[in-house]
């Protein structure tokens, strides 16, 4: 029965994309057979690779990624850069090393391995073994397809950075000799043709060409396998099984195996799973009909490979996945594949968590988050949404993560915030109502911090891992939010969707996205892009001064020499000023000085609030460092505030955006804050009564 279901699923998978995909330029075709021994962690593989020269000049050598050599020893570039730890996980420097050894590579009967050599194009590290250069006996002509027969042996590393094993859990990512990307002239705006095949760095992910895949995996029967693509064949012999998966039109292939997986299956049904209000919102904002927006949707099979101790998370991940499928389908374009596999990594293998591949990704479940009140922390949902959506900004719009990591992580951080905040509201909320939105958390890491790099840099050239993280994730995410605020909802989302539709199944570069944003002609957007993607721009609005005085006319001698508003007799004492002259009737003269620090120019509203509760709003274009407002009014000025709508999400210090003309007399937020803080201290102290 299961076989029948699997076969049906397979036909569905292979059937759907034919209609849904518009067809990327397919450069590669992989047919791989791999077997591994879970005891020794040794892998043997063979692949038939068909590679088509996409350029208009002959290519005399091929370049391959042998990623697992990053875990070969502590001299690899990856290890040197990471220091043996990544994203909180540490390398096992005892038995945890791994490698990939290409044992044979034949083309037209000629063995190529003998002439192959490792190169380190990025850092010249002579000990790095992650880029294999294979000279060819004759060049591959433009448009010619070279069919290579490759065999290799590998050892699975213990997981600390994306791929590897822990106990019986295996995640195979970047696991086979994968050909680099030969970029013809003009691809990603390049002026020259050539190989784009970088070393494996601690702070970099991947870039590859589109193609079709067929992968046969041989392993012991007891393992449950989750994979990119769909299962098309199963064979069983001698306690082992061989599972064959196929997927068209992707550019990487990953799979996982663990005997403990519990498989949860569901189906995303557009008729039921797309919220009606979201359809209406998207149609209105994008200026398209609802039927137009829904036309590309189809059912998507969801397979969740859950750890048995995480059963409480099954609906949480599934619901998050369905929401992500609905949202991305409406605001970018419908997901073109027939299935998506979600892999729940074990809690002792978190190095593999939060990693994305096409049609498969790893997510996070932590048991302590399954019960009240911690089930209000929607981090598992956020990870599912985030990793799935990588399938768009890295997967379907296949950006070069080595060179432009923000294009995947940054756009993804932005869309993740929109999705998570819309569905979950305050996503870290313990106790209820007190917490933070996803966008606020990202904004805090971007706007409130200083850094030494622009957004745009190659992944391994940021000054630190923190800088890579900030400039790849929250900084571009928040800056895109800033662009959204500058353009307005309709213009922004139309530009956003145009970008997504234009570049799907292609390899966009930074300028392609930025051009889409600049297309509206908004000068502030163009300036913002220049200052942030290519510079370290920042901005801080503030009210430097807010004063108000009763206008009693002038003081001194008039033209006739008569004293006005003062007594010239030096023996008389000066009349003391009234304690609070704000009670007097007008007119009142007010002075407000608004400042903008930092090198980003941005328009902002300035709102002046008077005692009679009237307000005056002026828009400042942000040019120059400051602006003064002189206002004459019948009521005294109480407060001046710049950007009260908080549209400047990059504002480094939003607290100095308002100033009061005198000590405030109304309800005191400070007193409220102090009171709660005092109670917090008392709660903390009183817990000692339980011990002392």
């Amino acid at each position, binding site marked *: 029965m299961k076989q029948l279901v699997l076969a049906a699923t397979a036909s569905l998978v292979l059937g759907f994309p034919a209609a849904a995909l518009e067809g990327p330029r397919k450069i590669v075709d992989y047919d791989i057979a791999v077997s591994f021994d879970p005891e020794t962690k040794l892998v043997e593989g063979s692949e038939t690779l068909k590679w088509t020269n996409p350029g208009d000049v002959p290519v005399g050598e091929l370049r391959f990624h042998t990623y697992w050599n990053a875990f070969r020893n502590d001299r690899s570039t990856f290890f040197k850069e990471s220091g043996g730890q990544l994203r909180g996980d540490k390398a096992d420097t005892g038995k945890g090393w791994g490698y990939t050894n290409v044992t044979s590579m034949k083309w037209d009967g000629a063995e190529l391995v003998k002439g192959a050599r490792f190169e380190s194009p990025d850092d010249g590290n002579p000990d790095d073994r992650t880029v294999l250069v294979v000279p060819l006996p004759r060049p591959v002509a433009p448009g010619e397809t070279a069919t290579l027969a490759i065999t290799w042996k590998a050892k699975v590393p213990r997981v600390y950075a994306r791929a590897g094993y822990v106990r019986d859990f295996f995640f195979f990512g970047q696991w086979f000799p994968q050909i680099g990307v030969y970029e013809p002239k003009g691809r990603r705006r390049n002026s020259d043709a050539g190989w784009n095949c970088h070393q494996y760095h601690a702070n970099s992910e991947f870039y590859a060409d589109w193609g079709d895949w067929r992968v046969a995996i041989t392993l012991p029967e007891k393992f449950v396998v989750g994979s990119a693509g769909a299962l098309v064949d199963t064979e069983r012999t001698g306690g082992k099984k061989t599972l064959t998966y196929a997927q068209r039109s992707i550019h990487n292939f990953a799979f996982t195996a663990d005997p403990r997986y519990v498989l949860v299956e569901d189906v995303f049904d557009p008729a039921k799973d797309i919220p009606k209000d979201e359809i209406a919102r998207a149609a209105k904002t994008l200026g398209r009909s609802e039927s137009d927006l829904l036309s590309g949707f189809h059912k998507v099979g969801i397979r969740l490979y859950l750890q048995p101790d995480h059963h409480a998370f099954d609906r949480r991940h599934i619901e998050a996945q369905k929401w992500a499928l609905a949202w991305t389908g409406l605001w970018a374009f419908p997901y073109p594949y027939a299935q998506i596999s979600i892999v729940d990594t074990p809690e002792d293998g978190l190095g593999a968590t939060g990693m994305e591949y096409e049609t498969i990704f790893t997510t996070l479940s932590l048991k302590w988050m399954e019960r009240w009140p911690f089930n209000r922390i929607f981090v598992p949902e956020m990870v599912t949404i985030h990793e799935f959506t990588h399938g768009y900004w890295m997967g379907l719009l296949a950006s070069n993560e080595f060179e432009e990591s923000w294009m995947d992580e940054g756009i993804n951080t932005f869309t993740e915030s929109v999705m998570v905040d819309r569905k979950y509201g305050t996503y870290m909320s313990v106790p209820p109502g007190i917490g933070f939105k996803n966008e606020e958390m990202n904004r805090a890491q971007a706007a409130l911090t200083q850094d030494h790099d622009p957004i745009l840099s190659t992944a391994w050239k940021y000054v630190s891992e923190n800088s890579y993280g900030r400039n790849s994730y929250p900084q571009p995410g928040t800056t895109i939010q800033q662009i959204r605020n500058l353009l307005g909802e309709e213009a922004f989302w139309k530009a956003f969707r145009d970008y997504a539709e234009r570049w799907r199944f292609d390899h966009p570069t930074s300028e392609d996205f930025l051009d889409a944003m600049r297309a509206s002609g908004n000068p502030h957007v163009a300036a913002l892009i220049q200052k942030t993607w290519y510079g370290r721009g920042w901005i801080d609005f503030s009210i430097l001064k807010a004063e108000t005085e009763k206008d009693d006319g002038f003081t001194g001698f008039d033209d006739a020499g008569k004293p006005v508003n003062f007594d010239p007799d030096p023996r008389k004492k000066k009349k003391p000023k009234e304690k609070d002259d704000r009670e007097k009737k007008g007119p009142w003269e007010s002075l407000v000085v608004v400042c903008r620090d930092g090198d980003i120019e941005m328009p902002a509203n300035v709102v002046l609030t008077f005692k009679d509760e009237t307000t005056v709003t002026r828009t400042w274009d942000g040019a120059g460092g400051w602006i003064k407002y002189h206002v004459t009014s019948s009521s005294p000025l109480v407060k001046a505030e710049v950007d009260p709508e908080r549209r400047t999400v990059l504002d480094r210090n939003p607290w100095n955006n308002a100033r009061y003309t005198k000590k405030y007399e109304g*309800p005191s937020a400070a007193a409220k804050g102090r*009171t709660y803080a005092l109670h917090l201290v008392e709660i903390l102290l009183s817990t000692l009564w339980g011990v002392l």
Partner: protein
Amino acid sequence: MSATVSGLSAALRHRRLAGVLWLSLFASALVTWFPMKSLFAVFDEGAFREVLMKGWDGWAMLSWMTAESRSLAIATASVTGTLLVFALLQIFLTGGVLRVLVDGKPRPVFARVIAESASLFKANLWAAARFLLAASIWGGLFVAAPVALLKKLARDAPPHTLLPDLAFWWGIVAGAIVLLNVGLRYDLARIALARGDARNARGAYRVAKQRLAGRRASGIRVLLVWLAFGAAMQAVFTSAGLRMNPHTNGAVAGLFVFRQAGFYLLAMVRVGFWAALLVWEERRRPAYSVIGSASGGATWKLSEPIATSAAASARPETGSSVTTNGSALLSS
């Protein structure tokens, strides 16, 4: 009358004593007032005043923590200092609180508690040190070492399976058991000091051991009942306080008073606990008590009848030679 009922009754009767404990809490917390004042000043001067008066604002709080990071660091340091001061203050006050409870006179309280606390402070401080030492040793032996061993055994086991779960729950349960046992003995040692059953911490711990012999479980039950009372009280008032979310200065003052009432009730729970434990201990006292253990050989002395109020108040402040086997707690 059960120990719990006696404790509740004493908590209601010794309201001033609870007041002293509440005052110690409030005064300690006030140490942080000035750093807090500087930390929160921007709430009234900055852009988020109105929104914070309405309630929680995540972005306001995140940006405030960054903008006021220095003030926040100072306030955090002051809270840490306050924790230490409060811990010492409780070690100090417990002796006086117990003496007042033993004597059963609800007033005068303040001066009495201070004077009695001062006389017992040195011995109580040693008792606290011994408590910490015992907690470390027993915690190391029965919690840390087994957990480390189980973790080693579970190194290749999947998470949340038998061995890792056993390590986790062993840590929690054994840790609680160790803390309850060590804590109970510490509490009984302090009672012994307050009653004058022993001159010093060493002797007091010996007396406490005798009291606990064979009756440990019921003593722990008393502890757990009052811990549960306290936790429930704290949860109710904290939750209600958060819901109040005051919008005016008057409402803020109301919140302040409401929370202090909560802490005062918590102090009453503390008094109730001590009273209940005194009753429990009293029922397990032999007809005679050991005193003078510090001098080496045990001196056996017949217990004296319950001290009258007058006799109690006339008692020398050091009080270490006075023993009772029944107090006003039971007779009242």
